[in-house]
């Protein structure tokens, strides 16, 4: 009997693990105006769910590969014939729709699609918790390793070039990190709410942060509080856990807006 036997403890650990990845990653999503990019990657993960079930491969691997493929596809498509948001709009919705159709077509398996759209953090297993923490640790390590380079590229691709950095390479690292975060998050908050967990804590952190590092740390604190508050709310009022977490984050965002002007 360990404390991991309690489903609320596992849910809290899964949520906190996810925040470890989404807090710094979400900052880059906000700074680089990649919000829609994050959504597209997450929607593609639903197609990944369908493929995993259809070909009987691991769910984590399926969502990771499709999210990564989507990221690479969007990066290479944008700026040619279509504007970035058009390319994303086509690909994201196509992947989401194809995923839903695919899941419905698979015979013999009863699948609760809602679980992948909105997540089911209350049903995460010990293995899931381990996978989430592993994935999140890899994302956090990637971002810490490339932190200075990523910031430079975000501020100015020209300056990055002059310093010998390759902006395309750094973009690929972000795409990879995003795909990893989506793959571990789909079970926790679901494909539709991953974007919220990336963006809302970072946006809330912006109003009282003076440096990029403080903003990432503040996003982590806000994300963690959101996870715990959302789970508590879900427990007390029997509301769906994923959406409750996002509502808690939104409440903190509003508080941060009201308290704007205070810098840490």
């Amino acid at each position, binding site marked *: 009997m360990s404390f991991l036997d309690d489903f609320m403890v596992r849910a809290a650990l899964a949520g906190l693990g996810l925040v470890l990845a989404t807090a710094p990653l979400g900052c880059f999503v*906000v*700074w680089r*105006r990649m919000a829609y990019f994050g959504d597209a990657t997450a929607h593609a993960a639903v197609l990944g769910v369908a493929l995993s079930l259809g070909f009987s491969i691991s769910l984590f691997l399926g969502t990771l590969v499709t999210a990564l493929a989507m990221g690479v596809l969007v990066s290479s498509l944008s700026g040619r014939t279509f504007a970035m948001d058009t390319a994303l709009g086509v690909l994201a919705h196509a992947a989401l729709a194809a995923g839903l159709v695919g899941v419905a077509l698979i015979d013999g398996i009863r699948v609760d699609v809602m679980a992948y759209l909105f997540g089911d953090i209350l049903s995460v297993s010990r293995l899931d918790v381990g996978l989430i923490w592993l994935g999140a640790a890899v994302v956090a390590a990637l971002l810490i390793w490339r932190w*200075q*380079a990523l*910031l*430079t590229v*975000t*501020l*100015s691709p*020209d*300056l*990055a*070039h*002059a*310093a*010998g*950095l390759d902006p395309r390479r750094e973009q690929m690292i972000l795409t990879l990190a995003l795909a990893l975060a989506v793959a571990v998050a789909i079970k926790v908050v679901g494909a539709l709410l991953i974007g919220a967990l990336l963006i809302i804590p970072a*946006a809330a952190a*912006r109003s009282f*942060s*003076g*440096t*990029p590092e*403080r*903003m990432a740390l503040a996003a982590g604190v806000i994300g963690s509080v959101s996870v715990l508050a959302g789970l508590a709310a879900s427990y007390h009022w029997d509301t769906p856990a994923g959406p409750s977490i996002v509502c808690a984050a939104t409440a903190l965002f509003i508080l941060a807006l009201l308290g704007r002007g205070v810098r840490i």
Partner: protein
Amino acid sequence: MSLVSLNNIAASYGKKPVLQGVNLDVRRGEILTIVGPNGSGKSTLLRLVIGAFAPSKGELTRAPDLRIGYVPQKLQADPSLPITVRRFLNLPRRVGPAATKAALVEAGVANLADTQISNLSGGQFQRVLLARALINRPNLLVLDEATQGLDQPGSAAFYRKIQEVRDNLGCAILMVSHELHVVMAASDRVICLNGHICCEGAPEQVASAPEYRALFGSGTGGALALYRHDHNHSHEDCDHDHDHPHSHKAAE
């Protein structure tokens, strides 16, 4: 030995040729300015020199001790990214407080270290970008239309600062500008570019070259006259007096 040497360089974006047959040496300590109409390949030439773009033909050699400081054309400071000037100067390499302070002093903006870059005025931002370029003690400072968006006194002050930096640090300066009169006053050598090098030489030589006049018309002749007045130089070719009446109009 030159800092950077371009030998018969050609460059293209896809199939569209931008530069061809470019031969150019950037010498130590000189202020070299590139002028040319839009689309003439000025920015591409700078991108070749800083290594952000590979030539499709020709040979580009850099001195082994070359250290480039780069001041970009413009930088979109997204207000969603909080960053102080001090932090900005420590990207992508952390250089420490002493070097940060020294570069800010050199660029004349020591008081801005703790300001958010999104709160800087255009002129302050250019000084900060200059400070950032100076931080690794470059022997070549590359400026791409660094005064875009500044008013005339602002850009004149900026170019005076550039000259001062060259005099203090002894670094060579390679820059592109639209503001012919201001830039020419500050340059040792001017290159007129339009897909290839049309003409080059001392500012007054280039300004009177037929290739230059074909590209820019005679209006800029007045701007150069302004330069001559300002600096009170003596010139061998003093038979240009007839230029002066328009020149004052053109300069305004």
